[in-house]
């Protein structure tokens, strides 16, 4: 039996679930001082003065730095994605642009002393007019977030492909809607955390950082501070969730590093949850004016969407390119020959948006699947039927989208059919009619997804970043006992990729899964890495492990050949032994080979000692995964509360390396989709404050909110050696529109239009009872 596909328990679980995890805050280094930040309470203001005299005199305080005093000696933080990044420094010098922006930093012997001292600061602000609404930000008289740019508009991308104008002119039906995807927060269980440990005597710096991509951030760090990468070490120990929010070195984290270098002592900072809601990146936040052109039979002729992406005040790592992903994924699995998509990106006085599980593609899926549902309603077509008429059929593959993406595998109509069957579509419809007569409102909603993932092949159009390796590396080192340690460039935050990597290697080396240890997250021991994000773990990192393992086997074959006095090409490796073809008695075990490779007792110097190999795997193309979701909801028309009665997810993730892990990934993605559909929202009031900055207000779905799930899969292996497709983000794409479509269906008798999320009880009730 192969390890790939086996439902093995995760290597990580016993340790983490029994409290053995080691997170940044668990790491203690002698003489560490602890940071606390003073943050802007205004969305836009001049920092008139920062008086830290009382702070510096407070018990336990080691140092205190203000932006106005220190910004001049701090480095500018460039964007990794754009050359025209608005200038910013770790502490802001003279003006704040969003609530939560750091203006001063206090360093003390312990975290509580730092916080106590910070309360003694006297900061004066001169509030300035602010802008929060992205459309308003585009108007000529809007307050400017960055006055020297002369506009809040960051840029515009307009793609007109095929003949959209002609299609709209000859269309029998045009369906128009404005649809919005709200701003959400990644809400990782572990907030951000950093421990910067300088070694003044040598100029070395070790940064323990709760992050998703240590090598990428090492390069960025070297770039920002002008430091040698050879003297920088970034370590991501256990990381308690990231979802895209930890692909950054934030201004406050850079301030911590700056202070550590300045003072020559270790500095630690662990974010509070409140800070995470304002100073941690946000995501989504798009408003689409969308139109579908259809013929009389419900065939989609063209899609138009002119949309705005509210990026917030600054560029973090990916900020300016996140909404770009929405453009090319707006046609999903559907055969839509003509498109007219225009994106305007704007600055507002809010925290930046960033990548967040499903970034860009979740927004696209929501807009597309809501539009198709609305088209079905307007054309009086069944939602299943309209989708079936427009999905790319298997005989259309390979299919090139208007945007130039090539789909090569999968059966999208079959995925939809399976979801429809598993949700019991016809019986739900019958029950719906019956329950409506009794004043109960249930609805069924569908949505399909196409997950563009596995970012990104080097030089590929989807890799516009400066320091962003699309490849992945693995070093496998076999010890004299024949057991292996794999140093993977992935940087999991709970995904279980140590298990995935070990399963791939176990099959190649033909050794037990338990004989493989996987190390990740340390730039000192791992050759290089792109990290874990964008559903790339198995798709890119898995292949690096595969190729490295194949190289180790080739080396072992040479050792075995020397031991057996045969030519390497005559050696057969099977069942954990190397045997001369046709001579079953001439055989050596894996363990004997591993021992000989290190101690050369039998053959002498006939080969280079050692048994290890490194592989860098650069994928030839991006990867796609796809699926279909179905949701059944009940809406209480009196309270507006939505309950999901049943949720179905049918996914094609190609070859599943570990069924528990892939199902867990989809399950977790759906949980985040449920959050986007019904609960989560970063809210700003008119004053630019963030009332949602605690879990008392920001609702995160818990196990109690999770619906009964039915999961199934249809496997079409990808065109890669492992046949895998991405899976990490899959659940986040179709679940919000499936749920929103179900709510729209349930409330059809009320003529309610669902054009935004989250569909919280008060929102649903207001839709049903307009003033």
């Amino acid at each position: 039996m192969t390890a790939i596909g086996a439902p093995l328990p995760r290597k990580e679980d016993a340790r983490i679930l029994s409290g053995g995890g080691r997170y940044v805050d668990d790491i203690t280094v002698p003489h560490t001082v602890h940071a606390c930040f003073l943050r802007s309470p205004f969305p836009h203001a001049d920092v008139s003065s920062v008086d830290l005299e009382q702070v510096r005199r407070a018990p336990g305080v080691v140092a205190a730095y203000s932006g106005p005093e220190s910004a001049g000696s701090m480095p500018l933080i460039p964007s990794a994605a754009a050359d025209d990044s608005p200038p910013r420094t770790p502490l802001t010098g003279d003006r704040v642009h969003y609530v939560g922006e750091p203006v001063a930093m206090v360093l003390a012997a312990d975290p509580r002393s730092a916080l106590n001292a910070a309360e003694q600061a006297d900061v004066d602000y001169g509030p300035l007019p602010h802008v929060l609404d992205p459309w308003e930000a585009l108007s000529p008289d809007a307050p400017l977030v960055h006055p020297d740019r002369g506009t809040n508009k960051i840029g515009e991308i307009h793609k007109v492909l095929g003949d959209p104008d002609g299609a709209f002119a000859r269309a029998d039906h045009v369906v128009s809607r404005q649809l919005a995807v709200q701003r959400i927060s990644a809400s990782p269980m572990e907030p951000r955390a950093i421990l910067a440990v300088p070694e003044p005597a040598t100029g070395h710096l070790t940064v323990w950082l709760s992050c998703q991509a240590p090598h990428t951030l090492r390069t960025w760090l070297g770039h920002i501070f002008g430091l040698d990468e050879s003297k920088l070490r970034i370590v991501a120990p256990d990381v308690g969730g990231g979802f895209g929010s930890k692909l950054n070195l934030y201004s406050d984290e850079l301030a911590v590093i700056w202070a550590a270098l300045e003072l020559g002592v270790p500095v630690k900072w662990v974010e509070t949850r409140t800070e995470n809601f304002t100073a941690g990146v946000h995501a989504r936040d798009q408003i689409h004016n969308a139109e579908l052109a259809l013929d009389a039979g419900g065939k989609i002729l063209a899609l138009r969407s002119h949309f705005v992406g509210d990026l917030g005040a600054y560029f973090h790592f990916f900020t300016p390119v996140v909404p770009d992903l929405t453009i090319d994924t707006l046609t999903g699995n559907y055969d839509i020959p003509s498109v007219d998509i225009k994106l305007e990106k704007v600055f507002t006085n809010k925290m930046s948006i960033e990548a967040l599980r499903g970034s860009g593609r979740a927004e696209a899926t929501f807009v597309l699947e809501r539009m198709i549902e609305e088209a079905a309603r307007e054309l009086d077509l069944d939602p299943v039927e309209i989708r079936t008429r427009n999905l790319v059929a298997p005989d259309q593959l390979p299919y090139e989208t208007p945007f130039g993406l090539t789909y090569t595998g999968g059966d999208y109509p079959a995925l939809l059919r399976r979801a429809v069957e598993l949700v019991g579509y016809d019986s739900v419809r019958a029950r719906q009619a019956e329950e409506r007569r009794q004043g109960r409102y249930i609805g069924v909603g569908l949505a399909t997804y196409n997950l563009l993932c596995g970012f990104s092949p080097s030089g590929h159009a989807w890799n516009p970043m400066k320091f962003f390796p699309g490849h992945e590396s693995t070093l496998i080192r076999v010890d004299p006992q024949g057991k292996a340690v794999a140093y993977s460039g992935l940087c999991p935050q709970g995904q279980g990729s140590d298990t995935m990597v070990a399963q791939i290697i176990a099959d190649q080396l033909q050794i037990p899964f338990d004989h493989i240890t996987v190390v990740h997250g340390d730039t000192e021991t791992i050759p290089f890495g792109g990290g874990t994000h964008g559903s790339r773990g198995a798709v890119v990192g898995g292949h690096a492990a595969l190729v490295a393992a194949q190289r180790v086997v080739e080396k072992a074959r040479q050792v075995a050949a020397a031991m057996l006095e045969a030519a390497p090409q005559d050696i057969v490796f099977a069942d954990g032994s190397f045997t001369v073809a046709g001579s079953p008695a001439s055989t050596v075990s894996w363990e004997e080979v591993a021992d000989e490779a290190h101690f050369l007792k039998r053959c002498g110097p006939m080969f280079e000692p050692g048994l290890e190999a490194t592989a860098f795997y650069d994928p030839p193309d991006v990867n796609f995964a796809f699926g279909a979701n179905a949701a059944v909801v009940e809406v209480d028309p009196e309270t507006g509360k939505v309950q999901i009665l049943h949720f179905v997810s049918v996914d094609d993730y190609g070859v599943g390396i570990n069924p528990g892990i892939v199902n867990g990934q989809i399950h977790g993605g759906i949980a985040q989709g449920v959050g986007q559909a019904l609960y989560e929202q970063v809210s700003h009031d008119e004053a630019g404050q963030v009332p949602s900055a605690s879990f008392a207000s920001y609702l995160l779905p818990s196990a109690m909110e999770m619906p009964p799930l039915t999961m199934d899969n249809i496997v079409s292996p990808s065109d890669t050696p492992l046949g895998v497709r991405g899976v990490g983000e899959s659940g986040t794409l179709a679940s919000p529109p499936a749920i929103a479509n179900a709510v729209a269906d349930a409330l059809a008798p009320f003529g309610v239009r669902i054009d935004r999320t989250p569909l919280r009880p008060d929102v649903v009730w207001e839709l049903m009872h307009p003033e």
Partner: protein
Amino acid sequence: MRPPDFEFRSAGTVEEAIAALGGEDGTTALAGGQSLIPMMRFRVIRPSVVVDIGRIEGLGSIGSTDGLLEVGALVTTARLARSATVRSLSPLWAETASAIADPLVRNLGTVGGNLAHADPLNDLPAALVAARGHVIVVGPSGTRTVSSDDLFVGPFETSLRRGELITGIRLPRGSGGAYEKMKRAAADYGVAAVAVQLAMDEGGRVTRAGIAVTGGADVAARAAEAEDLLVGSDPRPSTIARAASATAASALMVTDDRGGARYKRELVKTLARRAIERAARRGDGT
């Protein structure tokens, strides 16, 4: 946990607690800590002295005398929810207790703390008002009994005097109770809730009615007009609908991130109707 500096004292007896609570300004009692500790962590409140009353013996009993249910202040809300005595003598209180927050909070939060905190979103105040219960208060000048109507002064404010401590509650027993709560998510604060306690005669007429609202601007606002509408009536749908409307009119609902005032008023009406219907069905049985 990073609260401001404070002094911690542990009281072994009610007398020790009273002495400590009557001491310097800014002294507060710590029972289950489910509201106090988060507020201290957020530095919303800054007590100078925290007196742990959680170890005091004798405040953790549930019993009944003379048709009254007696619950000690340190009984946890989880115990309240599953107590057979409470379930049989006051379904309203058992139901309210099980609607509080989540199991982690219920396992530590106490009856006395829930009431004394006087949070308009806490559930037990409305249950106390609807049931016309009393709290037993011990202080420097002895023991007194405070009726539910006199206990709550305003949001986070009670009529307890300096040095006083709630040691228990007394509730009239009655099967005709129900608590209807609307939460957006399982572990969320409620948006609103309505507590109803009805007593009915053999003919099914309401002889006594208690109705109070959770989640308004005031703590556990009593819906007196709705109560009057019900008393003496045979609770038919039309009567219940009028009482539900009166309940909604009696509570001041304000717009916040849980919903607009208009939504909340309609929600209270719906919850009141559902609670009265259930209470009447239960009350019928006694």
